[in-house]
């Protein structure tokens, strides 16, 4: 049963990635003008390069055949050539991917540790801490990453000078220093949402009859919390954490621009501005894949935590 659940999820993943890749490929044809014009970013091409592009994208064959060639190339790591930088898109992506991955990972750690931690603490005990967590998270859930970036740069980079305001840094320690403010800006709103959902889940489980019974029987609080409250609250907590971490993959673009980090998202925005379509397609494909994979992992972790989910699961 578990195996079938995983298998079906994998098939669904591949299916939605196939359709998503089709949409991303079709961008060439959705753009006003000919695909050749779209590929060249609307600039006039010397006849030689037009021919090269035509050949590389098989423009004289049918639409589906072109998609097939493109997908086949993409699966083999060949995402075409950037029209502005005249370099392989995969090379360009490879040099930036670790910035984005590091940023998202750093922010994820902050979300998991602080978001879930605060949520559990304030869910278990009412009082001034709980109230302040509620108020602070209500406000910070409404602060977009680029506004958080302004505040962080203003306070921690300009006023206090604890962290650099811009750039990637070189070497591991310098990277961590350079990535701290961006990661906090990226994590902020998601952290608040995770904390709120965690708090609500812990509260809901704590109020349930079997927990009250366990408490009144004198079972030590530590066991009640571990075995009854957290075990059951783990599902909604995992779900919201997974969803918010997946959403960071796209929002990272905003943070990278705000802090002048040399990552995939910032590059995607720059490519969209200059209509460098091969780059836009390559990065979009990568980000969509990462987004879908993180969502799948979340589902699988939930099913592992609560095997009933795998049984109950029906095609949505």
């Amino acid at each position, binding site marked *: 049963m578990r195996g079938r659940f995983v298998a079906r999820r994998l098939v669904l993943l591949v299916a939605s990635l196939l359709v*998503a890749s089709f949409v*991303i490929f079709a961008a060439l044809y959705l753009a006003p003008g000919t695909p050749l014009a779209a590929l060249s970013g609307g600039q006039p091409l010397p006849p030689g390069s037009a021919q090269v592009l035509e050949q590389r994208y098989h423009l004289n064959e049918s639409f589906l055949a072109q998609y097939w060639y493109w997908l086949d190339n993409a699966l083999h790591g060949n995402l075409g050539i950037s029209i502005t930088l005249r370099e392989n898109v995969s090379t360009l992506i490879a040099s930036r991917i670790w910035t984005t991955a590091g940023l998202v990972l750093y922010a994820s750690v902050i979300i998991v540790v602080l978001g879930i931690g605060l949520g559990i603490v304030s869910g278990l005990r009412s009082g001034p801490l709980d109230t302040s967590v509620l108020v602070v998270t209500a406000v910070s859930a*409404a602060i977009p990453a680029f506004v958080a970036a*302004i505040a962080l740069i203003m306070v921690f980079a*300009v006023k206090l000078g604890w962290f650099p305001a811009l750039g990637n840094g070189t070497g591991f320690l310098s990277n961590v220093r350079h990535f701290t403010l961006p990661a906090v800006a990226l994590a902020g709103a998601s952290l608040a949402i995770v904390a709120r959902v965690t708090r609500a889940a812990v509260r809901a489980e704590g109020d349930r009859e079997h927990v009250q019974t366990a408490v009144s029987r004198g079972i030590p609080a530590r066991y009640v919390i571990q075995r009854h409250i957290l075990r059951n609250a783990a599902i909604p907590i995992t779900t919201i954490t997974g969803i918010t971490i997946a959403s960071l993959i796209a929002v990272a673009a905003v943070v990278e621009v705000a802090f002048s980090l040399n990552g995939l998202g910032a590059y995607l925005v720059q490519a969209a501005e200059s209509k460098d379509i091969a780059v836009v397609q390559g990065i979009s494909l990568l980000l969509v894949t990462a987004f879908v994979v993180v969502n799948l992992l979340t589902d699988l972790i939930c099913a592992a935590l609560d095997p009933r989910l795998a049984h109950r699961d029906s095609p*949505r």
Partner: protein
Amino acid sequence: MSTVMAAAESSASRRGLARLRSTGPAGIASAAVIAVATFAAAFGPLLAPYDPDLPNLSLSWVGPAGGHLLGYDFEGRDVLSRLVAGAQSSMLGPLVVVILSVTAGTLLAVTAAWRRGVSDTAISSGLNIVFAFPGILLAVLAAAIFGAGLPAAAIALSIAYLPYVARVLRGAALKERGQPYVAALEVQGASATAICLRHVVPNIGPLIVAQATILFGYAMVDLAAISYLGLGVQPPTANWGVMISENKDGLLLGHPLPAVAAGLCIVIVVIAVNVLGERLFEQARAVRG
């Protein structure tokens, strides 16, 4: 006829007011903030004390002084005027997104819940594929294809939000579909469209309104982010997202006010929308049980 309509309208608005009052002081305060922002969005360009688009480079980065409460921005334009005028594009964009995606989402959800079977499967799997595209990414894609601008970004976001809207509403519509009154109406020969439009949609109405309110907050943040990235509203048009990005250098130069003020506008409206939306959700849930 017109008196009947007026009476119906006033009773509807009275009900709306009662619902608003029951959201508590935080709900009322949020509604007040939203009302002010909406007023600025409607009449912003008329209310602005100075010309929001008139640059004067000799005044760039000058702080608050003599009637210019928030000082001047990087091009020497009055910040307060730009904030008030910028309410228009900052509020109108999310409104369009909400209308488009809630309308389409309701339509899809009710259709899926009503017909079930193949239609439901088709709609659900279609939405699952859309779900693979995060809103901001779809908006950037749209900008790359159709060129930067508010329309492309708004349409892209409306599509990206569809799965989230439709998933919640489909569940509610499914529940409604199973109610005995629906079966009774069917037996009486009422058409599917009539039952859906006159009964199912109004009955899940509070949930739709709550959903739309929360969605407005998301749309506002995402559209501001896209404008901040330079792919949405284009300068020199006044817009809160654009103002943050064009005055970004002020942070390092020691003139944070223009960017911070624009950021605060976004945050305050989004907090208000979130608080109100959360209250409306609780109400909808309490009513539906």
